[in-house]
């Protein structure tokens, strides 16, 4: 045990002595959490809508006024027609282009129906479909008004089934509740995995590994001594990030924090062990960095952080069963937002524990003291 402590002490000394690295390890990730979280959502706001109102009637103005009143749309007018709108779309000067044809009001009065034309920049499909959804909502609201004006006496027909939507765990539909814990997972994972993956290979590069290899220490002592410092650092980052999330964004903490940290502790064994495993495989820091990057990109893209796993095709879902990050992203959200208990996430626990054993056994076995 003393050997492990000796290695541990040395690693900590090296980390805390490196004045260039300290802010990068401790400040950068947390600062990113605070700033970049505002960028990380799929909410649609400030949509630039170019309107070509050919009718310029009371009815058309009322409709445009509805768009103006919504905080999702920023309305701009053009006096020219179709070509100008398409040009603006091409140039990326607008996100959507609404055309209200001539005789709009007249048609409404005569036939009870007047079509509108909407051209959208569909490069980002999801964004565009949300824009369309919100535009239709606004138009539907106006439609109710129009109907009321057209049939002032009659009662508007009531739908036979009343549908009530209730949103649990996140009443205000705050995207940050979802993204703060998720982004925190990514940041902690990035720091932990990169630090650990560059560690052993760094000693290989500067040549100190030989001196350690001729010392009579056990492989597991070495791996453990190397792993623990980053384990503490990562757990600290997680705690600090949660505190900041609570403080700045008031993210809910419904479940038990000890449960969350217990899971994080096991999870970090997996990721750090993987980092060390990569480190034992590599000859240079550059190599280990690229290998880690490779794994992290797959892990993070398939973690369900940005897009739900349920949306993925079946084969991709099968891959996520072997993705430790997806388990942690899931657990963080379950415990923080819904207050899930140990019984709820027992399966996650079992899986991550199995990974931890496998990965660390791999790291110990693959670390060769002699060629």
């Amino acid at each position: 045990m003393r050997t492990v402590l000796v290695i541990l002490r040395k690693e900590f000394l090296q980390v805390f002595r490196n004045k260039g690295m300290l802010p990068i390890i401790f400040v950068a990730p947390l600062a990113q959490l605070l700033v970049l979280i505002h960028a990380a959502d799929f909410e649609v706001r400030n949509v630039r809508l170019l309107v070509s109102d050919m009718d310029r009637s009371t009815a058309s103005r009322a409709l445009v006024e509805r768009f103006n009143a919504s905080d999702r749309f920023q309305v701009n007018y053009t006096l020219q027609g179709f070509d100008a709108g398409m040009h603006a779309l091409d140039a990326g000067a607008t996100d959507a282009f609404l055309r209200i044809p001539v005789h709009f009001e007249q048609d409404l009065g005569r036939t009870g129906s007047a079509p509108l034309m909407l051209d959208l920049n569909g490069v980002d499909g999801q964004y565009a479909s949300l824009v369309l959804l919100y535009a239709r909502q606004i138009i539907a609201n106006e439609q109710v008004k129009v109907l009321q004006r057209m049939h002032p006496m009659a009662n508007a027909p009531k739908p036979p089934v009343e549908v009530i939507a209730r949103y649990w765990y996140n009443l205000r539909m705050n995207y940050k509740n979802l993204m703060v814990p998720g982004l925190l997972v990514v940041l902690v994972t990035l720091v932990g995995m990169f630090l650990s993956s560059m560690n052993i290979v760094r000693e290989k590069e500067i040549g100190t590994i030989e001196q350690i290899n001729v010392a009579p220490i056990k492989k597991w002592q070495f791996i453990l001594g190397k792993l623990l410092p980053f384990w503490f650092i990562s757990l600290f980052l997680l705690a600090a990030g949660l505190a900041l999330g609570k403080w700045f964004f008031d993210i809910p903490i419904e479940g038990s924090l000890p449960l969350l940290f217990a899971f994080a502790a096991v999870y970090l064994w997996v990721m750090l062990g993987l980092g060390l495993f990569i480190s034992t495989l590599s000859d240079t820091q550059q190599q280990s960095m690229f290998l880690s990057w490779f794994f992290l990109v797959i892990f993070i893209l398939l973690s369900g952080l940005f897009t739900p796993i349920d949306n993925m095709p079946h084969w991709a879902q099968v891959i996520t069963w072997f993705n430790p990050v997806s388990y942690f992203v899931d657990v963080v959200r379950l415990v923080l937002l819904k207050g899930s208990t140990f019984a709820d996430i027992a399966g996650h626990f079992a899986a991550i524990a199995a990974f931890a054993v496998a990965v660390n056994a791999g790291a110990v076995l693959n670390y060769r003291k002699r060629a």
Partner: protein
Amino acid sequence: MTGGITIHAKGLTKRFGAFTAVNAIGLDVSAGEIFGFLGANGAGKTTAIKMFIGLLKPTEGEARVAGFDVYRQSEEVKKNIGYMGQRFSLYNDLSVMENIQFYGGMYGVPAAELKARTAALVDDLGLKDQLNTRLRSLPLGWKQKLAFSVAMIHEPKIIFLDEPTGGVDPVTRRQFWELIYAASAKGVTVFVTTHYMDEAEYCHRASIMVDGVMAACDTPAALKEQFKVKTMEEVFYQLARSAKRGD
């Protein structure tokens, strides 16, 4: 020269694929002996050393270090030897004290004992005032001497030195050899590789490797007589001329 055999090798061979780096070398080194292991670059010195210290598994032949078999008991071997490699092996971002504590701890030197040895060590090296200085700001000569002392921190019976004086000025080299003599006087076996031929004169016995084979092994005086020359340098030239490998 006292005591029994501490390093023994017979027919020790290491092959990397078709390339035979070390070809059936045999040697016996006694306790307290300073054994010089000479050879041109690429002659197989480092490969041989790495087999003795348990960093490389031999392909065939036998070798025992401190009485332990290098095949099956490499961890036991490690407890009884010290090693200082070609590359500087201490941490530049740690202080003198911290480096000593780290390696002392790795060898399981008890804390109280380590404290006493640290004090004696810095006294010997005249590093008392630099105890908390980071290695980065120490001159290379001092760092090399410190590396030697750190490799001896667990008081091993045998120390392996792989070109320990590379890139060091003559004065420091002289001081370094004083450290080697002091260790030898205490009964520590010193196994040292070098390509400074003047250093070969300091050894009790010297062997010369040519193309993975031990071409000669005797006391410097006997070697000079055998080849009818005045210096070890000339001995070396005569042997190394026939070499095919090296760069």
